[in-house]
């Protein structure tokens, strides 16, 4: 098929999936946080609030977009646009699966495999500092300014340990292409462990993984590093003066960054779309078994309903889950669903960690955040990199 048509098709699929998962990530976050906090979370719009994201989108899109009179208009308007477009760009180089063949076309499950994929990601994430700084400065509001400055300092500081921690997997894989990094993680080590970067000899990147994850929390401005928008100090931080779709853009950017960060972590450290254990041991049946178990559980609770309406809704859910289980058994579908399943499972687990931490942790103070970055994270990342380099030089290949 024509390269151009194929690219457009893939872009549409990825963009659609990303936007949907953005909206539903926010729903998941609200639900998880609510259950941590003994609440129900969204419950009114649709069953279990499932249509809440849609309602939120409609609400935000139809609100009046106020541009305060005291702002610097060009930069004020540029900032949310920049934030959201940069946040959505980085997903382009993430590989979701191996090379597949569908309808007679062979293609990678990845929008584009540029050979400097990792550098591209770093460049994009550095640029997103500008969005926050512009927003903070152009709003001409003291809270926004403080939030913007905090965000800029924080993102620049944490980019260093992030980039250094990320160099470990590059050393081992010997490539900057994300696809090749994933392919370098195939197989088993020590008999049972997958050869993911966090386990891979000669230099397991467990410390690198932890450092990267902490830096990722800071890069995405999440608790405990959510100082730029610490509502108890700075009201809403850099987006205090934004409303309507402009506010929605910042909101989307935050969640898109979260998705990208978990996707990058999965790709670099957790073997990307590779299964937990090789197909010889039956990893292809894991999703089917999982969905079948869930279906059985739903069916059981449907037959012994706690509430009257569960008698109808839960069997329907069970049916859908059983259908999903069956879907994973069809060989043609398997080739692209299985890698996707493993990728999403790993990224989802990380995402849950992000949300869980938000439900549990207090917030750092600004100076503590900086000293943590420079006095602990940076040296730790550097030591990890040197040790890995030494191990790779001595033992690899």
């Amino acid at each position, binding site marked *: 098929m024509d390269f151009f048509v194929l690219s457009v098709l893939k872009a549409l699929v990825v963009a659609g999936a990303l936007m949907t998962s953005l909206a539903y990530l926010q729903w998941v976050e609200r639900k998880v*946080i609510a259950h*941590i*906090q*003994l*609440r129900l979370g969204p419950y009114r719009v649709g069953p279990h609030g499932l249509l809440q994201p849609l309602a939120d989108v409609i609400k935000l899109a139809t609100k009046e977009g106020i541009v305060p009179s005291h702002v610097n208009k060009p930069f004020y308007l540029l900032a949310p646009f920049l934030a959201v477009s940069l946040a959505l760009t980085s997903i382009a180089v993430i590989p979701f699966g191996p090379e597949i063949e569908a309808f007679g076309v062979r293609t990678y499950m990845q929008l584009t495999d540029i050979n400097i994929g990792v550098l591209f990601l770093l460049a994009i994430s550095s640029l997103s500092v500008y969005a926050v700084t512009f927003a903070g400065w152009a709003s001409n509001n*003291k*809270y926004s300014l*403080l939030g913007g400055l*905090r965000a800029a300092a924080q993102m620049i500081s944490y980019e260093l340990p992030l980039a250094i921690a990320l160099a470990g997997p590059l050393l081992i894989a010997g490539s900057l292409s994300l696809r090749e990094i994933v392919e370098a993680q195939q197989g088993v080590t020590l008999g049972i462990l997958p050869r993911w970067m966090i386990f891979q000899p000669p230099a397991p990147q467990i410390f690198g993984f932890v450092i990267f994850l902490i830096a990722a929390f800071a890069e995405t401005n999440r*608790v*405990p590093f*959510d*100082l730029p928008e*610490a*509502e*108890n*100090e*700075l*009201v809403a931080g850099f987006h205090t003066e934004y409303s309507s779709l402009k506010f929605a853009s910042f909101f989307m950017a935050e969640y898109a960054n979260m998705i990208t960060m978990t996707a990058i972590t999965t790709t670099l450290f957790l073997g990307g779309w590779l299964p937990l254990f090789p197909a010889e041991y039956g990893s292809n049946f894991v999703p089917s078994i999982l969905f079948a178990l869930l279906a059985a559980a739903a069916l059981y609770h449907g037959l012994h309903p706690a509430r009257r309406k569960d008698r109808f809704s839960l069997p329907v859910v069970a049916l859908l889950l059983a259908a999903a289980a069956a879907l994973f058994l069809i060989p043609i579908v398997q080739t692209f669903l299985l890698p996707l399943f493993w990728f999403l499972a790993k990224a989802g687990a990380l995402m849950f960690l992000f949300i869980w931490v*938000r*439900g*549990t*942790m*207090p*917030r*750092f*103070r*600004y*100076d*503590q955040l900086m000293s943590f970055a420079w006095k602990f994270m940076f040296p730790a990342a550097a030591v990890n990199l040197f040790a890995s380099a030494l191990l790779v030089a001595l033992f690899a290949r």
Partner: protein
Amino acid sequence: MSDPSITDPAAIVEASASAHPRRMTLNMGPQHPSTHGVLRVVVELEGETVRRAIPDIGFLHTGIEKQFEALDYQQGVTLTDRVDYLANLSNNLCYALAVEKLLGLEIPPRAQWMRVLLVELTRLNSHLVWLGTQALDIGAMSVFLYCFREREDLLRIFEMFSGQRMMTSYIRIGGLALEPPRGWQEAVSRFIKAFPSNVDQYEDLLTKNPIWLRRTRGVGHVPLDVLVDLGVTGPVLRACGLNWDIRKTEPYSSYEKFDFEVPTRTEGDVYARYQVRLAEMRQSARIVEQALAGMPEGAWRADAPHVLLPDREKMKTQMEALIYHFKIVTEGFGVPAGEYYQAIESPRGELAYYVVSDGTAKPYRVFMRTPSFGNLQALPAMTEGRLVADTIASMGSLDFVLGDVDR
């Protein structure tokens, strides 16, 4: 110093900030997520360092003290609820004690113990809200909702007693408003049994959390002598090492019969205040348990027909009762001329009502010495020279209620 004729905090800070070109004036409040109401703090910033902080109060001034003069004594109880929305019963008690002293009323032991029990539940209520909001200020969102779960149980207990969740007016001059409801022992004991393990849960989340420690240790420290000079009382003072608790030093309402400790710390920072308040919650739970176990039998209000409305039954059968009812309802009861200053240990510190009577049925003057007002004075001393985030942590640890500050 600045021109004394300028009283607007913004003007003072503006003037001093304009002398330093690198400084910025930041107006926090009266609408701000963590000023706990309508407090306005004008802050002079150098970077993120607070050079100067001036609290500006009065946004919630309701003139409650003046309103007392227009109501008769028993009606005044309803005003005391509205001073501090987290410690209503403490305010009820303090006012009732002051007026009872002027009247020379003898309160039966059951009523006194009941009052202790209710006031200690109020302390739990207030400290739970404090813990939740302090944790929220520092970014731990979940603790806030856990605390409100317990508080909800407490409010249900208050509702059971008085029919009201917050504006209870349950402690009246001469005893209690109503006979304690059926089944109150079960409700209270169920709550108090579950409570210590819930406090343990909060401690699990916070006490040893490294981020919580970094945010609270050494933050907002003020030397003890400065605190005493500023009139700070309550847990903030005790966290600085001074063992001053009016329940112990000048016992009222038979507190001397209860066995409890006054927790103190010497560090005097936000973390010490946190520890003191958590320990106080455990002590309050102990007091409530003792009150439950040893609750005396007998009357729940004083035998004072000229002050308290008679039973309906008596009113319909006895002529004296009907006369007293008519007199109390139409003209209230006269209080002998005199004045009395009654202090109690409210959840926030020393709460006192100074009641002046001229012999009529309405007070000549009621003055409140509210703990929040005194405690708020320490805010500039706690925050100047520190970071904005510490201002928020210190503000939370002072545990002021703006209604209590402005009155």
